[in-house]
Each structure stands twice: as structure tokens, then as C-alpha cells.
């Protein structure tokens, strides 16, 4: 009576365990295989452009389908600048929201606000793009940019970033929209890690007479460093790769400009715009080469993030 079920259980685990192990292992390998395939395709696809342009591909600002001369600089700079603006806007805001939700917010509205922020993350990026183009851009052109040009424009050095006619569309607007798009991601993760801080630590700090700012600065942030860096990296990864929303509001111009209000382009926006109609081996290859550059860039960003995480762990 006693033995039968046990034997049955043993038999199940004799087959079940290896099967489960094999299943998980093969799924993991599948991911690696796909990643390897992507790397291979990108490298193989970008060989023609490196053959024609050489290393110039990595250092020129040209992008001319007529003469078949391509360089990554303009889209690369655009990608980095818009991502930087997005981080400058998104990170502090997200931290503030997360802190408010975990420390200051009355209990009964905490959940509705959290859900509202998570809903923002579920909005498809094309909606952000259309909203940015039709609603934000005209307002930006008529109300915000003229003020920025008048107030910040005359300042030496810094003023160079705020020059030129107010068009609405441009790198600044793209960066701001991106900042809004990454906000829910960073907020959701930081809120979770902030609430993982043991109450006893916080209470003790308040007990010692710390202000709220001191609690954030000296207790919460140091305690959650790892998780916070992870959240920021998640946001940065998304900002670097975002395509549709940026394509709508950046102006899609292959030109370098010191002004943030000038139109520009990013790697993913260039791919979205030009891949379908790219004719000729070098042109297609240049676009795949852009993909490779973005891949390498994202890889380094993630690697750097992991390094920071490890260091923070020690």
C-alpha cells in the first residue's frame, strides 16, 4: 500500500527530470543560436560596405545613395544624443515618482497611480509618434522653442545647442518623447527595488532625525544601487533602439548640426525609413552595417551596465 505511490513518483522523476532539464537546456540554446545567427547575418551583410568604404564607413558623416557613399556618424550621433536627452529627462523623473510612490504617497492612491504608469508602458510606440507629431510638435514650435531660443540661445557655448528656426520637429523633441517612453519602465523597476528596502533601516534613519532627502540619498539609493542601475540600463537600451516614435518626430535628415532643435536621424529611424526601398548591394549593406553598429553599441551599453552592477555588488 505504501510503496506503490512512491515507486510511481520515482519513475516519474526518472523520466521527468532529465526531460525537463533537456527542455530548458534546448530553449536556452535556441536563444543563443538565434543571437549567433543575428550576429552572423549582420557581419556578413555589412561586408560589401566595408569593402567599398573601408573604415571610412565608421568615421564619415556622408549618407549619399546617389554616389553610394555611406558613413555611420550622423545616425550614430543622433542615436546617442536623443538617448542622452531621454536619460536626462527620464531618469530623475522616474526616481522621483518611484520615491513618491514608496515613501510619500497616501496608501489608497498608490495602486491606481502605479497602474496608470504601467499603462503608459503598454502604449504602442507609434501612438507616441503620432501624438508627438500632431499634438506636441505644433505646440513645441509655437510656444516652447521660441522661448528656448530667446532665453538660452544668447548664452555662449551652451547657446549653440539652442539655435536656428523653431520647426518643432527635431532631436530635442525626439529625445523628450523618448524620455517619456522610458519613464514607465524605469519607474516600475525602481519602485519595486525601493520598496525592498527593509522598513527598519528607513525607520531608524527617520528616528535619527534624517530628512526625506537624506533618507533617499543615504539609505534608499545605496541599498538599491544594483537594481537601480539595472532599471536605468533597461531604459537606455529601449531609448537606443526605439524606432517608430523617433521616426515621426526627428525630421529624418542626414545632417549634423550643433543645435538640438535641428532635424537629425537615428540608426533605427534610418533603417525604418530606407530599408524597404534600398536598391543596390552597397546601399543595403550600409543599412545592415548600421544595424551592426547599433548591435555593438547596445552590447557595450549592456556590458557596461553589468560591470557597474558587479562593482556595486562588492
Amino acid at each position: 500500500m505504501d510503496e506503490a505511490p512512491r515507486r510511481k513518483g520515482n519513475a516519474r522523476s526518472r523520466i521527468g527530470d532529465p526531460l525537463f532539464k533537456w527542455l530548458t537546456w534546448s530553449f536556452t540554446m535556441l536563444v543563443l543560436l538565434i543571437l549567433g545567427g543575428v550576429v552572423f547575418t549582420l557581419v556578413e551583410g555589412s561586408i560589401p560596405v566595408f569593402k567599398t568604404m573601408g573604415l571610412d564607413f565608421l568615421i564619415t558623416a556622408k549618407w549619399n545613395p546617389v554616389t553610394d557613399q555611406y558613413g555611420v556618424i550622423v545616425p550614430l550621433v543622433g542615436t546617442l544624443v536623443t538617448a542622452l536627452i531621454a536619460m536626462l529627462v527620464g531618469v530623475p523623473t522616474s526616481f522621483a515618482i518611484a520615491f513618491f510612490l514608496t515613501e510619500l504617497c497616501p496608501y489608497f492612491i498608490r495602486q491606481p497611480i502605479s497602474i496608470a504608469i504601467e499603462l503608459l508602458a503598454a502604449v504602442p510606440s507609434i501612438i507616441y509618434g503620432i501624438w508627438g507629431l500632431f499634438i506636441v510638435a505644433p505646440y513645441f514650435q509655437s510656444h516652447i522653442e521660441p522661448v528656448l531660443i530667446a532665453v538660452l540661445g544668447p548664452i555662449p557655448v551652451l547657446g549653440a545647442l539652442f539655435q536656428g528656426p523653431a520647426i518643432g520637429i527635431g532631436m530635442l523633441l525626439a529625445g523628450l518623447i523618448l524620455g517619456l517612453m522610458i519613464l514607465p519602465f524605469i519607474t516600475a523597476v525602481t519602485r519595486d527595488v525601493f520598496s525592498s528596502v527593509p522598513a527598519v533601516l528607513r525607520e531608524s534613519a527617520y528616528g535619527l532625525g534624517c530628512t526625506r532627502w537624506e533618507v533617499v540619498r543615504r539609505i534608499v539609493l545605496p541599498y538599491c544601487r544594483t537594481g537601480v542601475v539595472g532599471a536605468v540600463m533597461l531604459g537606455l537600451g529601449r531609448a537606443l533602439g526605439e524606432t517608430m516614435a523617433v521616426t515621426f518626430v526627428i525630421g529624418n535628415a542626414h545632417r549634423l548640426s550643433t543645435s538640438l532643435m535641428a532635424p537629425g536621424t537615428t540608426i533605427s529611424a534610418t533603417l525604418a525609413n530606407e530599408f524597404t526601398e534600398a536598391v543596390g548591394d552597397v546601399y543595403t549593406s550600409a543599412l545592415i552595417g548600421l544595424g551592426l553598429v547599433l548591435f555593438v553599441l547596445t552590447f557595450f551599453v549592456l556590458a557596461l551596465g553589468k560591470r557597474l552592477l558587479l562593482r556595486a555588488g562588492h
Partner: protein
Amino acid sequence: MFKLRKLLATAAILAVTASGLATAQAADISGAGATFPYPLYGKWAAEYKNETGVGMNYQSIGSGGGIKQIKANTVDFGASDKPLSGTELEQAGLLQFPVVMGGIVPIFNIDGVKPGEVVLSGDVLAQIYLGKIKNWNDPAIAALNKGVKLPDLALIPIYRSDGSGTSFNFTYFLNESNKDWAEVGVNTSVEWPVGLGGKGNEGVAALVGQTKGAIGYVEYAYALQNALPYSRMLNKDGKVVEPSLESFQAAAANADWKGTPGYGVILANQPGAASWPMTAATFILVHKAPAKPEGTASTLKFFDWAYSKGDKMAEDLHYVPLPDATVSLVESSWKQVVDKDGKPVF
């Protein structure tokens, strides 16, 4: 990175689905390419299916994609807004013929100026897109628009950010009209010296619509359906013309179809007092010695039907049917398409 991966995955899924469809419905015609004629091909396909039971699947993936697909033999026909040259056709063993035409019109955004009130010329347009004319009150624009009060307003040129047959025809026309345009060149996408890029006709229209002082170019059908303020143009003969089916047809009538390999006539800047200077045709590509002759034969039957019965549908959608003389010229060229025994398939 994620986007690219997604793109690759989607492409793989599409490829699998496409090959599945091809085997499942052998009788259906498959085509891919230009987005410009897509609404018309879709309408024709629906009507053709009603009459004959033969379906036509057309994927509007862009002219570049259409050329690649027909060269790779994955579809029965490719469609392109940019005609291939005689040597290119020869190398790939392709036959090319035009189907319908359309026009490209400049659109603008100035308060208090009505559609059709502004007149522009190719030379002025080229200077605007080169960044040499920067303001609407420029004397060169004023000279074309006596009696119209144009404001002191910065010109913001808008172009197509995606590669497009419309851009190809537009830059071709600018190049014909102003010798300085040579430094930019003629292509489906170019390195624009000034301005902003919008994706697709709708992207250009949206940017023009909300940017004061903007000027852009879109397909006529699109401008008409969305009631955009278009301009009139000065043509090669020095006459001011309105964009209309008649002025597009006039440009086609004056073109030298016979003497151009693959009928790859670019209809921009054609002579004739009534010709609209920015007219463009859209083309079909089929293999001259197809691997699947049945597919090519049904393709040619489909377009034969479209030439004879599709004119009304084309005009309803503001496309311009080809002149009858051109159609008979095209159909006589179909004899070059042969099966494995060397017999014409049509």
C-alpha cells in the same frame, strides 16, 4: 537591436507564409513592389477575382523590394515606380512595361493663400530644395506670381524620408530644370541639403500641414483625397498648367515610348503646351523566360484585362490610364515572354 531582431523574425515568418500560400493556391497571381499603385492593383484584383475566379496577391513592399523579389523569382511579377535601364533589364532577363500614370504636385502651407493660387517652376523648386531660396517673398517666386501677395515667411522644404519612386521622379524633374541639382543627384532617396523628412505621402502631408511656410511634394491622388493646397506649375513650353488627369495624359501623349528600352520613359518635363511637368508612370517587371510560365501567363492576362476594362476604376482612384497606342505597343512586346519550348506564353 531588438527592432532588427524583430524585423528578421517578421521577414522569416512572412517568407514562410508566402511560400505556403504559393503552393496552396497555385492559380493565384503573386506580385510585390511599389506602394504608389497599390490601391489600384488591389481594386483590380478584387474585380478580376469576381469575373474570372483568379486571385491576385499584391504586397506593397516598395519598388526596391519588388525589383529584388522578381530577380529572386519569388513572385510572378515585380512592380516599380523607377524604371530599370535597358542594360539592367537585359542582365536580369526581365521585360518591363508601364501600367498607369499619376502626377506629383507641390503642396504648401501659407495662411490666406488658396489652392492653385501659387505658381512654381522647376527652377524655383530646385533652388528651394537646394536651400538657395529661403523665403516666400523671394523675387524669383514673386516673378511667377504677379498679383498674389506672398508673405515674408521662411521656406521649410519637406521631402520623403523613405526611399520612393515619387522622390525619384521629383529629383529627376529638378535635375532637368536646374543644372546645380547635379550635385545632389537623382535617386529614390538622396542627400537632401536642407529641410525635413516625412515618411510616406502621409508623413510629408502631415509635416506640411502643421508647419507654416512649408512646401512639399505628394502624389496627386493623395493631395486630392486629402484636399491639400497644391500649386500650379510652369511647364517646359512655358505655359502654366493645373494638375489634372488631362494634363498628365498630355504629358504621356508627348512621350517617346517606342524609342525607350523597356518603355522606361520618365514622364517628367515632357514637351507640349498642356503637359503637367511632374507626371510619372509605374512599371511591371516579369521574366522573359520564366521558371513558372503559368504564373507569368496569368500575370499578362491580368494586365491585359486591366488595360481593357480597368480604365474607369483607375480614373475613379485618380490614376491616369495609358494612351491606347501605348497599350498596343506594350502588348506586342509581350511576345518576348516565352516558355521552355520558346513559345510565347501570352
